């Protein structure tokens, strides 16, 4: 997708993204300090909030092809398995058991199939939300700190899963994370945001190992690199 001159003004914050390009089948990272506008930008890109001005060209993608997973996901007031099948139900698809088991295993929730989902722990809820977003095979997936409550092993498991899935079902991912290890393993291209706009961007290895932008250098320093 292509983004140009995207603007959104709030009382105490202004977002201004001059241009951004998200090419199919690649994994993008958005990084930057708290309050720099990552979530705001992502909600605009995902079509969840309308911009004040600017254009978003989805290049043929429809809203049904796009999803977004939040740090604190919305969990339906229902069982784990009913949460998982919800996006399929919306599409009139009957899931087969093997598929459900596969995703429940991935989320380590196989033993909680019939459990009341809002009663799950924070990390379990994030895992559920992630597999719920994967099960309907969207073409463009936005991830906003959706691993933040998971244990290290689970994060690694999902990273491996995503990397493997990219070889079989290439999907476009845009990932916000404060865990740089996460970004480094998954993303091939990085947008660094500062104060409401994209301050630096480039291929991940290059921009993360030898950042030319002073703000990015400072950010990476503080992130303990």
């Amino acid at each position, binding site marked *: 997708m292509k983004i140009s001159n995207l603007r959104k003004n709030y009382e105490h914050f202004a977002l201004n993204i001059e241009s951004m390009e998200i090419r199919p089948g690649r994994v993008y990272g958005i990084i930057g300090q708290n309050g720099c506008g990552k979530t705001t930008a992502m909600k605009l890109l995902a079509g*969840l909030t309308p911009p004040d001005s600017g254009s978003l060209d989805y290049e043929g993608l429809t809203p049904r092809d796009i999803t977004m*997973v939040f740090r604190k996901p919305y969990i339906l007031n229902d069982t784990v398995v009913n949460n998982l099948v919800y996006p399929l139900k*919306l599409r009139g698809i009957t899931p087969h058991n093997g598929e459900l088991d596969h995703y429940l295993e991935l989320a380590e929730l196989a033993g909680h199939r019939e459990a*009341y989902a809002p009663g799950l722990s924070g990390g379990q809820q994030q895992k559920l939300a992630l597999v719920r977003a994967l099960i309907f095979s969207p073409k463009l997936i936005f991830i906003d700190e959706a691993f933040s409550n998971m244990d290290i092993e689970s994060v690694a498991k999902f990273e491996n899963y995503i990397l493997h899935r990219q070889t079989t079902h290439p999907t476009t991912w845009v990932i916000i994370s404060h865990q740089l290890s996460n970004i480094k393993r998954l993303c091939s291209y990085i947008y660094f945001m500062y104060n409401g706009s994209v301050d630096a961007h480039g291929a991940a290895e290059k921009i993360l190992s030898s950042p030319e932008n002073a703000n990015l250098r400072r950010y990476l320093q503080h992130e303990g690199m």
Partner: protein
Amino acid sequence: MLDILHDTEIIGVITLTLRMTLLSTFISSAVGIPAGLLLERSDFAGKRFVVALNRTLMASPPVVIGLVVYLLLMRRGPLGFLGLLFTFEAMVVAQVLLLTPIICGMVYTAASRNAGRIRAFAQTMGANSRQTHVLTARELSNEIYFAVVTGFGRAMSEVGAIMIVGGNIRFHTRTMTTSISMLRNQGEINQAIYLGAVLMLIAFSVTMTTDFLRRREQRTDENF
């Protein structure tokens, strides 16, 4: 002890009370729930005023509502030709005017807290607009249920409005609350207490049963 309300009469009073309560709760829910949901998702010039008006009506004193309905329905009133004063229907009208703002307001409050998140979620899942509305109502079902039960409780216990528009006429518009009020005036304290206990029992058993039928409790602990 002199029985002012004989056994068969008591049964009649109880049935009338339940009929009135259920019918008014049903009508008020049928109007108030959609109105509350609609109010939350619409945006128009006078919205803040409508919300404020709703809040005011939620707290309107039953006797005042009763008086208004009385003035409308009295023989020389604008709706006098309907001949509804001192009937079952008049009591239902007064009850509906009392309950609808309560149910609407409670649903609106719950919806304004949660519906935004629910809609955003629905969109990320690819729901169309009908599916989004269904999901919103379903996810708010606990709150909607609570609003309806609150309305039911109000209707069941209310006395001021129905006394004015119903007139506490024997075999006709005499309900449990108007009976209790009347018995107390007549000094029949024991019977008033007896009827009061029955009223409490019915109210409790109705809410307990519906509560029991709703299997799941919402987890409210947000700090995980």
